[in-house]
């Protein structure tokens, strides 16, 4: 009965405070729109300059391949100086340069070079562009061989298949990863701020002198925000399916269960932050951003692959709840119910939730003394 009254009070507090409703419902929508549309690693229609100093059928057969590729938006330039200037002004990402002796050396079978220059500042895009150009080059070689009446016989042919995401659409792994960011924000930021505010205003101490037990208080704080968080999750799911067309290979129920588990962990994290920050909203907000949002973005495997990080950083990622959730999300969405991925990650999440709640429980008792 006491608990019921308390939850009711918390619930009303949530509903009547527009800013917490905004975090729970407006924020997921805004975030999904921004991230879903704004973050993409698919470099398409990359602007490149083409300089052909030896025009002719051979050169144009190669540049034709660049025109036909959806990855490039080529622009013919009169001289290499002009192209270099465009590269310096960042108007093009790369230059393909067929020098004046290209056609002649080609005829003499001297294997002339096709010079490619890319702006390497954005190393990732530069690498993708290099890959696309070598793809065009390989196709061109094959075509030239067929034209000459031979079959191209390279000793080793690459026959590759990309599993789980055959269209190689970056949105298919970024949108599921977003769930982790949205839920982290709702769970951790919202609770951290709200509870810090209660301390700051002194209403928390008022609560502590009521007969309510610590456990009841924790449950009372968790339930309303848990419901809000699941509301945010429902919105996110809806947008992922209908706006971004992300396929779901695994079971929806499993996804729901894992998300609920992660939400509890995130809420626990928020409670810990607000308790430890000693009731300053400023500190709580800073801490929430620094230990929840940024790691969820950078250390979770959401964009940057964890296996590529140096050892100590990889070890550190094990402390990030988002890491486990992202692994589960990407697997359920793209690969299916792979228990060998889901079980250990879910167990880690459950453990973290337990530890967080235990810390809060202990800490809250102490402040009573």
């Amino acid at each position, binding site marked *: 009965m006491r608990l019921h009254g308390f939850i009711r009070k918390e619930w009303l507090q949530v509903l009547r405070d527009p800013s917490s409703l905004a975090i729970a419902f407006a924020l997921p929508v805004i975030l999904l729109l921004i991230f879903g549309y704004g973050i993409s690693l698919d470099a398409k229609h990359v602007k490149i300059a083409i300089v052909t100093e030896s025009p002719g059928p051979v050169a144009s057969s190669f540049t034709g391949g660049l025109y036909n590729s959806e990855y490039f938006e080529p622009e013919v330039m009169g001289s290499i100086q002009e192209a270099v200037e465009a590269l310096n002004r960042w108007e093009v990402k790369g230059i393909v340069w067929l020098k004046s002796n290209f056609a002649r050396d080609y005829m003499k079978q001297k294997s002339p070079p096709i010079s490619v220059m890319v702006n390497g500042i954005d190393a990732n895009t530069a690498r993708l562009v290099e890959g696309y150009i070598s793809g065009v080059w390989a196709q061109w070689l094959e075509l030239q061989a067929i034209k000459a009446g031979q079959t191209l016989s390279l000793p080793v042919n690459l026959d590759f298949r*990309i599993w789980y995401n055959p269209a190689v659409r970056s949105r298919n792994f970024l949108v599921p990863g977003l769930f982790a960011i949205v839920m982290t924000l709702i769970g951790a930021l919202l609770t951290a701020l709200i509870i810090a505010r209660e301390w700051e205003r002194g209403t928390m101490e008022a609560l502590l002198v009521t007969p309510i037990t610590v456990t009841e208080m924790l449950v009372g704080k968790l339930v309303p925000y848990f419901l809000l968080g699941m509301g945010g999750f429902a919105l996110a799911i809806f947008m992922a399916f209908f706006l971004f067309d992300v396929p779901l290979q695994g079971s929806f129920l499993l996804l729901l269960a894992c998300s609920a588990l992660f939400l509890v962990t995130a809420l626990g994290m928020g409670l810990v932050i607000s308790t430890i920050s000693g009731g300053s909203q400023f500190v709580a907000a800073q801490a929430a951003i620094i230990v929840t949002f940024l790691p969820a973005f950078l250390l979770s495997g959401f964009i940057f692959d964890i296996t*590529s990080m140096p050892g100590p950083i990889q070890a550190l990622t094990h402390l990030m709840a988002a890491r486990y959730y992202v692994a589960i999300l990407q697997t359920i969405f793209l690969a299916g119910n792979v228990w060998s991925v889901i079980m250990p990650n879910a167990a880690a999440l459950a453990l973290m939730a337990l530890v967080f709640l235990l810390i809060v429980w202990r800490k809250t008792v102490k402040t009573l003394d």
Partner: protein
Amino acid sequence: MFQRIYALILKEFLAMLLDPKSRATILIPPMVQLVIFGYAATFDLNHIKYAVFNEDQGSLSRQLLSRFQGSPAFSLKAALTSDREIAPLLDSREVLVVLHTGPRCSENILNGSGCNLQVLIDGRNSNTAMLALNYIRDIVSGFSMDLQREHGGNLPPAHLNVRAWFNPNLESQWFIVPGIVAMLGLVVTLVVVCLSVAKEHEAGTFDQLLVTPLTPLDILLGKTIPGFMVGMFEGSVIILLAVVWFRVPLNGSLLILYTGLAIYCLSAVGVGLMISSMSTTQQQALLGGFIFLVPAVTLSGFATPIDNMPPFMQYITLLDPMRYFLIIVRRVFLEGAGFELLWPQFWPMMIIAGVTLTVSAWFFRHKMY
């Protein structure tokens, strides 16, 4: 007038630095974040975990596969004996890549018909998959070329000669670390400034400020300068660490970099003050700051290129001061670009700073509750 402003600035600094917790949040987390993110945020692939399934007894297939073993980018996890083992390994993410050579691989190389190297890649992270494929393509075509050369076969009719400018080894760190200067500069400045007015609104002391002889301009300066100095300090420390610790080459002039940093900090302060003066409670201000910060970082081009976004999103990024400073800081660091190339990035930040600061000054007077 100067004395009055000086007193206000002094008061702002005292409020910020006297509280040990808020002092710590300004100083320590940014440094920790720089080091962690500097290492974590990488698109480079090291230790691509792979398994081989070699059905061939010949020596050539072994030579091909040993090239992967010799490459630092790959690390062998398992040698399979049946194709039933492939799916579980990929499903559970124990390996990213499986290389499969058929029983007649070596024979087919020798008789000229060519060996098919089957490559199966976990595409859950499509970017990683594409990069891994590029690495594999490089190794395989290197192997093919060497074989052809050894056996006196024909050279390919033309070859690619790729060079990356400004970042010859395509190191992600050179791209990300200068970006962190912009990201942390914005985060810290904004959080400091965001609260400065809202806190006084909440405590009621802002009304007191308004009845002092301070003019709105005085208040504006008094509120702007501390945040500006914190931003400049933060930026300087990170620039120093980028050069000394991460050894990112600083090719351009410090004068240009600092001019950019100063304008950038002003625009960050302007946005923060505008949010702060529009909100009545600290929580609103923090939320407002957050709602600005997340898209500002995401859409700035920090991790993923603006060029990959849909056009309407690209227009939104024009409002983001971080977008402009990111280009300045990266180009000054890696290209050594001068004012004439960077001018298009300077003036939009000036406009953002001017508009936001004016709006906040207006709000000082016109928001009284």
